[in-house]
């Protein structure tokens, strides 16, 4: 498990990509804008999103509550959320 105190923005970004790839193996991150909604850009449904949260939480060791879900809407907000959690 990743050391919680050392999660950098790049590590957060990598963790997010990994989590999404587990759900959508061919997800195209090049054309994904920083503030684009995962749900609409990647066509995530609620189950996909749950898996995403599950993967992310397991990979980073960060607890993610339902109330945190809005913070995981896009790449920008997700990176912010993960790095903030570690401070």
């Amino acid at each position, binding site marked *: 498990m990743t050391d919680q105190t050392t999660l950098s923005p790049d590590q957060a970004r990598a963790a997010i990509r990994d989590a999404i790839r587990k759900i*959508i193996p*061919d997800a195209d991150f090049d054309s994904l804008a920083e503030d684009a909604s995962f749900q*609409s850009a990647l*066509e995530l*449904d*609620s*189950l996909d999103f*749950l*898996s995403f*949260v*599950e993967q992310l*939480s397991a990979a980073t060791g960060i607890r*993610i*509550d*339902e109330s945190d879900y809005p913070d995981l809407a896009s790449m920008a907000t997700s990176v912010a959320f993960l790095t903030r959690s570690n401070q």
Partner: protein
Amino acid sequence: MATFTMPSLGADMEEGTLLEWLVKPGDTVRKGDIVAVVDTAKAAVEVETFVDGVVQELLVAPGTTVPVGQALATFGETATTAATTPTAAPVAAPTGPRPAPPPVHSPLVRRQAERLGVDLTHVVGTGRAGVVTRRDVTRAAEAIATRPARPEPSAPGARIRVAPYARRLAEELGVDLSALAPPPGGEPIRAKDVRAAAAKTTVAGTTAAETAHTPRPDAMRGVIANLMARSKREVPHYYLATTIDLTRALDWLHERNRDLPVSDRLVPAALMLKATALAAQARPALNGFWIDGSFRPADQVHLGIAISLRGGGLVAPALHDAANLALTDLMAQMRDLVTRARGGRLRGSEISDPTLTVTNLGEQGVELVHGVIYPPQVALVGFGRIVERPWAVDGLIGVRSVTTATLSGDHRATDGFTGARFLADIEQRLQQPEEL
């Protein structure tokens, strides 16, 4: 001579189904050329060759499933030898290089080949020591004559034998004949084979009984097109809608999820599915099939869950006996079903069993969905997006979370009254989430 084998396209791959040959005997191939399409149960994969050569013999016919490492074709160095008809069953790789047939042809054969416009270098000899006979030439000429008429490229020299009615039926039912395993003994594909394939396929367009292969998008499109056109042609739909206040249900859900790890959390869809299943169990008139002019109620509620596939297409596999699943089990099975549906690993029973379908397009942002019923089912329930709206409760206006539930009903099987009671039942059950 080199042997082209079923490649391993992933650590968990044990076998693959040859879907299509992209080369024919006599073709020259170079390293890196794509020679075949193989279905790995996850996806149709184009497979390349790692050697240069001339395709000599195709050993496996399309539709055949063989283990990784099994020989699929032999490649030679010259074009003088070519293929025999691929057999339906997997054929063991030849034990050693066979002697190249002599490039000598009898005058009679040469004259006939000239007359029929057959290139003898591409003809397989079936005579002694591989000598090309007149019959071989005639057969090659016939193959040439029929080839342009084939709408779909089939395996070279292995025209699929299909009864005329079966061919027509396959077109009507959207069954891909090239994906059917040929019946044993060289028997032609008959109507019953097509029907069996269509029954297994239903909307998913898959073929195998226990583990379904990922359908090719065009085949799936064809299946959906046929089924939906049939539904709209035959089923007199009626539509009902009601807006359901989900505030209580969502509050309950969030409260419940708060203390749980992510893997145990529920999504709102689970509540809606369970409420629908319970309502259908209580009102069996909407749960079953319209067959031969009458309604046949189903014993259990097998909820078909409409799942859109990435890259297009749709499957609606069954969540078996959903009314009697505890919410956590329902949730787990739903997740499993969605994962496997998108991975192309549905079971035959899941494809064929649904008694009532639910679509949850609301997650993609729409507020209302008027669905098309999957024949022979008689109803389809749709849930729109969960939105916050000003809502009057007990004489006071507040902000509440609501969704619009719709019912598409087959008016042959039920009337709007029954449908209205059913929707009202779903609404009531969603007001008591702890009972679900």
